[in-house]
């Protein structure tokens, strides 16, 4: 059986922890390492919505849909802000080199983290809504 929960916050950094707490509760039957990966991917996606789509401006909605099934967990992070260039999803990590300060990047790790934490990641804008959809295949049934 597939079940869906939708959660919404205001686009303020201090609200993101609420989503984390809710996701950890929903996923409580999964192994801790699995929860960590999914939570991190969701937080990074919500950070992007707050920081980039809404450019740090509060007062806008960010909503997350969690779809739980026996063999996967889908996370959709949605906003109505500025769309992201979908090519950014493919950005590779800059390898940090202790001898090369140019590689000591302050940013640009979020999408790489998302890609590495989840099995499938897709981005689209539909009817003014930006959707970062992520899927994680599960060995343990989260609804059991």
């Amino acid at each position, binding site marked *: 059986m597939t079940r869906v929960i939708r959660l919404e916050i205001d686009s303020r950094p201090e609200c993101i922890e609420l989503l984390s707490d809710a996701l950890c509760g929903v996923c409580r039957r999964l192994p801790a390492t699995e929860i*960590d990966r999914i939570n991190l991917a969701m937080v990074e996606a919500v950070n992007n919505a*707050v*920081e980039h789509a809404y450019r740090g401006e509060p007062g806008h909605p960010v909503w997350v849909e969690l779809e739980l099934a026996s063999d996967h967990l889908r996370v959709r992070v949605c906003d109505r802000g500025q769309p992201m260039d979908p090519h950014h999803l493919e950005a590779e990590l800059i390898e*940090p080199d202790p001898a090369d*300060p140019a590689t000591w990047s*302050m940013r640009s*790790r*979020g999408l790489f983290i998302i890609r590495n934490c989840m099995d499938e990641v897709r981005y689209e804008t539909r009817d003014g809504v930006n959707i970062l959809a992520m899927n994680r295949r599960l060995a343990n049934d989260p609804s059991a």
Partner: protein
Amino acid sequence: MILTHRNHHGIDIIALSGRLVIADVPEVRQKLLATVEQGNGKLILDLAEVNFMDSSGLSVLVSAFKAARAKNGDVALLHLNPTVRSLIELTRLQQIFAIFDDEAAALTRLSS
């Protein structure tokens, strides 16, 4: 977020706690950069009580590292929990940060 700050023979040791995420970044970045600026640029970050970090938390660590290296100093990370360690390793930041489970070893490294 900042638990404690002490100085051991010119090496600043700051312990953080809780979540190091986008909401906490401005405060922690300001504290770390001020510490590096006022000190010798030698900083140990004890992350034993940090239970979650995102990429904005990583950016704070890197900003402290850059500031320290600009003073010919360094930043060592101490007591990473498995969640934080796996994030550091995923993003290959262990290639620029010295990581220790033992404070004495971190102090020795930064003293040299």
